[in-house]
């Protein structure tokens, strides 16, 4: 049996040396986001399939408050801006400013969630629940899944915000902020699709008349 030519031992957790030159966590995050596209694809197409199929109301036109939801959309878009500003700051080594933008992102995210909660409770009050019809079923589960993703994002933002006080977030560890950012922007682009497909594109005459 031959001896193998040797090189310096490569430690497992050394983030510097990878076969593609790309950091492990970032590659993993992009792969995860790619797979998440299929998750939302399934939910969105369920919604589209059942558009106009409800046999009883309330129907979308009966409950949607487009101005309100537009404000929510602006809020989420703004949070993407604050997120990228947070990353930009930490990449320049400005922990203090990054911290501010991180908190802003989290607060905007919470505002979005608050808007969702308000919207859901209003709709329920108007007679639209999970069980009412296929519109209720597909709408709440789709937007609920999205909202859960936002909530997880807020949790991560607040965690990173807190860790920054313990000195754990700095220019060398800006990857953490970058990863949270990628996740956060993904949640935003999903909403861009949902806002158009669910809210803005009008549903045809409902099946029930």
């Amino acid at each position, binding site marked *: 049996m031959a001896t193998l030519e040797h090189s310096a031992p490569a430690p497992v957790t050394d983030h510097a040396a990878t076969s*593609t*030159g790309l950091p492990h966590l970032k*590659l993993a995050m992009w792969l995860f986001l*790619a797979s998440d596209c299929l998750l939302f694809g399934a939910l969105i197409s369920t919604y589209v399939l059942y558009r106009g199929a409800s046999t009883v109301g309330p129907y979308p036109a009966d409950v949607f408050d*487009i101005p309100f939801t537009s404000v929510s959309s602006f809020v989420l878009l703004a949070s993407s801006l604050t997120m990228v500003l947070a990353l930009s700051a930490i990449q320049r080594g400005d922990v203090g400013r990054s911290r501010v933008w991180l908190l802003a992102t989290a607060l905007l995210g919470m505002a979005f969630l608050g808007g969702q909660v308000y919207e859901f409770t209003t709709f329920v009050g108007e007679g639209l629940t999970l069980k009412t019809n296929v519109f209720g079923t597909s709408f709440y589960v789709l937007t609920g899944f999205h909202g859960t993703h936002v909530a997880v994002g807020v949790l991560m933002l607040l965690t990173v915000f807190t860790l920054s006080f313990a000195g754990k977030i700095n220019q060398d560890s800006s990857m953490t902020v970058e990863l949270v950012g990628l996740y956060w922007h993904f949640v935003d682009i999903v909403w861009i699709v949902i806002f158009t497909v669910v809210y803005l594109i009008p549903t045809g005459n409902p099946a029930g008349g």
Partner: protein
Amino acid sequence: MAETRVDDPGSETQTPAPHSGRHPGPREYIRIAIILGVITAAEVAIYYIEGAKDFLIPLLFFFSFVKFTLVVLWFMHLRFDSRTYARFFVMGLAGAVTLFLIVLLIFQVFSS
């Protein structure tokens, strides 16, 4: 260790370049955000235009597509990063769009 641009997995391990490509600064990000806001406002405005049914839907899709692309390419930095990330993301995105369009076509969702 070579700090080469990585499009193909090299034959040697490579230290990731700390920041590959250029980074937009805050000004550019704010500009993008303003564009996103304007497009959103346009989308909502169009929604209220009566009788725009026929081009409403394609226009709305076009606007969403633009917003989606702007966020992915600039905020998610895909325009400046390794193509490997884009390849994976496109795999998932294109896969989702294609497969579910086929499902919806089979259900004849797009026919009247």
